[in-house]
């Protein structure tokens, strides 16, 4: 009986398996990478209705974060300032700048400016600004150097791992309470130790002094 398939076809199943395996691995890898917040979130930089520059306000003019985000120390939510807050300066300064037209309109009509959300906590997680800020976790830990951004972008991943890294080792982020909104601050270096070691030394000291014990295995700390 003549052979239906040539000899070379013996390897076809193996080849198919290898190709399929490579495809599956590739797809898996692609999902792995492209579906993580590190890829989907970091670098997100939407256009805002008013080209507000944090670099000018927070960096150049040295305005404190809490001047505008006034409830960050009292509430879970760090508020976006009302048009009223902006107008307390801009009714005098740059009062005819066409870029500020939406702001003036909001002030006159009462219809608020629709800012575009950059940082977002998933609905199933609960985050409280006040407890972090009041215990010495700086804005910079999660939001990056906003004082150097002309247009705000998403600097850190805000994935669950990102939270847990810090909750497991809070010493890596703790600082004196009056330096919380100073985004340029670094721990003072003693002698020859590295900057990282300086932070850990201070952080450990503060952790002990403040009895810092963030939820790690307590799911209900963030998911409730």
């Amino acid at each position, binding site marked *: 009986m003549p052979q239906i398939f040539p000899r070379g076809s013996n390897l076809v199943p193996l080849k198919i398996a290898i190709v399929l395996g490579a495809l599956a691995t590739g797809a898996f890898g692609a999902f792995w990478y492209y579906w993580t917040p590190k890829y*989907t979130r970091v670098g*997100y930089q*939407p256009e805002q209705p008013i080209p507000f520059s944090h670099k000018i306000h927070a960096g150049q003019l040295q305005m404190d974060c809490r001047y505008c985000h006034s*409830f960050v*120390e*009292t*509430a*879970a*939510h760090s*508020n*976006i*300032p*009302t*048009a*009223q*807050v902006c107008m307390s300066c801009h009714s005098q300064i740059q009062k005819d700048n066409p870029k500020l037209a939406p702001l003036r309109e*909001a*002030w006159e*009509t*009462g*219809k*608020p*400016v*629709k*800012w*575009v*959300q950059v940082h*977002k906590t998933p*609905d*199933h997680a*609960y985050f*409280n600004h*006040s*407890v972090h800020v*009041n*215990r*010495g976790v700086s804005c910079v830990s999660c939001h990056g150097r906003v004082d150097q951004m002309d247009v705000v972008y998403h600097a850190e991943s805000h994935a669950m791992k990102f939270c847990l890294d810090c909750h497991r080792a809070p010493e890596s982020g703790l600082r004196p*309470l009056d330096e919380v909104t100073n985004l340029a601050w670094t721990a003072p270096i003693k002698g020859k130790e590295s900057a990282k070691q300086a932070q850990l030394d201070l952080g450990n000291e503060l952790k002990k*002094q*403040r*009895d810092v*014990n963030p*939820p790690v*295995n*307590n*799911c*209900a*700390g963030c*998911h*409730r």
Partner: protein
Amino acid sequence: MSKRILNHPTEKETGPKYWRSLGQVADTPEFKSWVAREFPEGASEINLETSRRSFMKYMAASAALAGLSLSSCRREEKNLVPFSRGVEWSVPGKAIFYATSRPHRRGAQPLVVATYDGRPTKVEGNPFHPSSKGATDIHSQASLLDLYDPDRSRHFRHAGNVVEEKDFTAALEALVKDASDGSGIAFLTEHFTSPTFRRLRDDLAKKMPKALWAEYEPLGGEEARLANEAAFGKGLRAIPNIAKADAILALDCDFLGFDEGTLEGIRSFSQRRSPEQAMNRLYVVENRYTVTGGMADHRLRVQAGKVGAVARQFAEIIASKTGDESLKSVIAKFPQTPAFSAEQGKWIAESAEDLIAKKGAVLVLVGYRQPPAVQALVHSINAALGALGATVVGRKTSSKPGATIADVSKGIAAGSVKTLFILGGNPAFNAPADLKFAEQLANVKTVIRHGLYEDETSLVLRGGKQSWHVPAAHYLEAWGDGRASDNSILSQQPMILPLYGGWSEIQLLDFLLTGKKSEGLDLVQETFKQIARGIDTESWAKFLHDGFLAGSQAKAEALALSAASVADLAATFKSSEGFEIVFAPCAKVDDGRNANNGWLQELPDPITKLTWDNAALVSPATAEKLGLTQDQKNGLFVSWLRIEANGDVLEIPAMVAPGHADDSITIALGYGRTFEGRVGGREGNYMSHGGWGAKKSGVGFNAYKLRTLAAHYIASGAKVSKVPGEKYILAITQEHGALEGRGADVIREATSETHKHEPGFAKDQHWLHERGAMDAEAEKRDKKGYPIPQSAYSHPELKDKNHQWGMAVDLSICTGCSACMIACQSENNIPVVGKEQVAEGREMHWIRMDRYFVSNMNDREEKIGGTHLANVNEPRMVMQPMPCQHCENAPCETVCPVNATVHSDDGLNVMAYNRCIGTRYCANNCPFKVRRFNFFDFNERQKDKYFRWNLINEKGMADTLKMSKNPNVTVRMRGVMEKCTFCVQRIQEAKIAAKVKAKDTDKVQVPTDSFQSACQQACPTGAIVFGNTKDPNSAVSKTKDNPRDYRLFDYIGVNARVSYLARVMNPNPKMPDAPKDAIMGHSNGGHA
């Protein structure tokens, strides 16, 4: 290591038996299967209405849709929208609390309401007000849902057509011009306690002196007013001072319920129920079980129509023993009543003796539903027992008796009423049947109806050419005021603008005075100015802040009995004959006004555990006589009853109620409504598969149709028969979460006498071992050789050294009112699932109220269906609230394959919803059956749309309902397990607040008792205590130190964080029904 076997104790043949349903007493196969299964048969399967063919169609369609949605896989741009101008006090995401009050016919309820970003989300009692002290009732808790009810009236209507507000105001202006002296105008209103309403009414009565002012409340107190007037003269009313009473006899008076009772009364009663202090004693005479009857030390069940006879016999004994002449003169006029049986006679005689012995510190209470003659007789009994001035004080009544609905009815018949204003109420539905009020309304030229819903009355008016419907504003939307049950003046401030453009009733009255729509605030301030003799910013701000005007409560007045007029009234008593029908207020829908509230419809009745229906309650003996049967499957299948009374016929399903009087039928009012409400109206009672055939739609059955002016509360001489054939399904939860008949361990009770000698009786577990409980092979044993309970599960680390949360529930003072259940539902975004789902055992309440009947197994002569059973006719009743027990060695945690339920450092058994994949192993392994599974998207779908395929069927709830959710608690989706979290959002909030305050220091411990769980906050008796067990000063630590403290199922070593204080009763040993066992719970030979 071999597998350890943990035994549960066996039940004893003698001694008390704890049971929940007749099915359990009879040990029917249905009950056994119910207990053995995690969910009832078929509950885990979908009764998919769609055929296979349409299922395939949906599948194909959804696949196509999925393709569409993939291609549009982009990040959604979301906006952050701040205010353009800052709003005072407003901090985004933080709650603001406002004091206000909820109007109610028996006194407004002082409240504090939490609002988030301008929407009210939770109602609490006002902790500053002396009558509330932070507690609430179920109706106040649930009223929040009414605010957001999408079925509420949202249009002005003229002759049934939707019109603009200005059309109505124009018509009203014309009417005011023509009104002149008010002849031809009549007002029919609810009983409003608001001082502003009364001020405007008086002004209007001056302006239109010939107008008729009538009040109607279907559950009003006209009989009580007559009796008070006869006894103490006009304008005075007797108020019980329950705190001072050592012994109380309640004659058909549900003073611990929310209709008849006040929060103050409930609290002062329960403060005397702890055996650590001098306990009071409660005797109750009633026809059906109420929560008051459940708290009774001794209970006598008689027909409601025979309560007068009990009172008379009681009065005779008191008169002869005390020699009180005025009481004797009253009895002489009170008609003779038939004698009671020997045992009932002894019951009455012994209780009378006890009251005489405690003379001066006793109280006899009588229900407002009893005839005036009986109530007047009780006033004179109180006088003879020295109660006046001690346990009964006088109070001036603030309202003048006006006309009644009967006067309005007469006016319509005579043609003298041409313009009728109906403010609130729902007379077309609930007026006495013999007035035929709904038909009469057609004979009135102009009717202006002001109401929260387009209810039966508004529907009747849609036909009338000159009829108007005005949407009312909810109390959380309108300025107003009110008087509490202690007569103090309460503020009522709006939290939100009217969602549907409603008017308040004071705005409507003021329009008639001034011809324009005023601001409610101005009207209330004007009243305040008059009452407080002046107004300034400070006093007004304090009034709003506190929620009440300090010092405005009524002062106690002296009472003097006028025996002659009491005797005249007593002479009007008529004995009842034959079968009686008792019209009772419903603990949930009240007189029917709460019918469209899903939380209340789904709340199991505190006694019957019935949801989404009412039924005719009959005693087991009467049921046998009438041939009524019932069996529990998925729902309780019951017989229909035909009741003929007062010239009308009602067909209604009958339910057997243990502890009910024979030859008596109780029907709760307020059901069978026909308005267009999706919850409680015509379409309300959704069930996809069978149940009632052609006989039924809507929720429950309307008993108002049997109720007449003369037989307002009790109709005697009814003809009653069983309707052969079809059965009706009741959704009843009494067997849901049954703990395999382990009631003897679950409930522990003793008499006060035993408690005195042996305060730690509940702790003793040795009797359990003697009945074979526990691990027989345990290695660790105590001195007596009994095994020390050990868990099969590992113990969590519990690293938090500052906080460990726990709860203790005092069974001595828990009445079972179920306020905790509604508070929990509101706080934790618990969905309403509908009657069909409840029948399947899928209700979602995180805390359930287990009601146990207790009967003495020694009295086995009582029979049902030919089998020897426990005494089902005269059981006692015990309540037990059952939240998640937060076991330290939690059986649910070890079986979860995805670690979705784990233990937290502060001792909570927590659920991570996002991890849960819905295996339901945890629910299966929970010994307390407290876990709830979202079988459907209850929060996203209407109750008739659960089943269909996801992408095709319409999804979503009304936007207003979304506004009612607590923003701090996840709204759970389908396929997720959930359960009590100990209000973890409140715990976290308190912990965060402590940390924020601690700043640079290590003072992170939450201050002692600085917050409460929702159930604890609502509890009117303070039975639920929650807090930090690591804090020795916390209330919960102190409560857990009480020797009565015990934990459930300790013998399997679960180490529950919820513990219970054993119930202690204070029975009178001379009574014929005094318990024979000293330790009532388990009747252990060693203790008796």
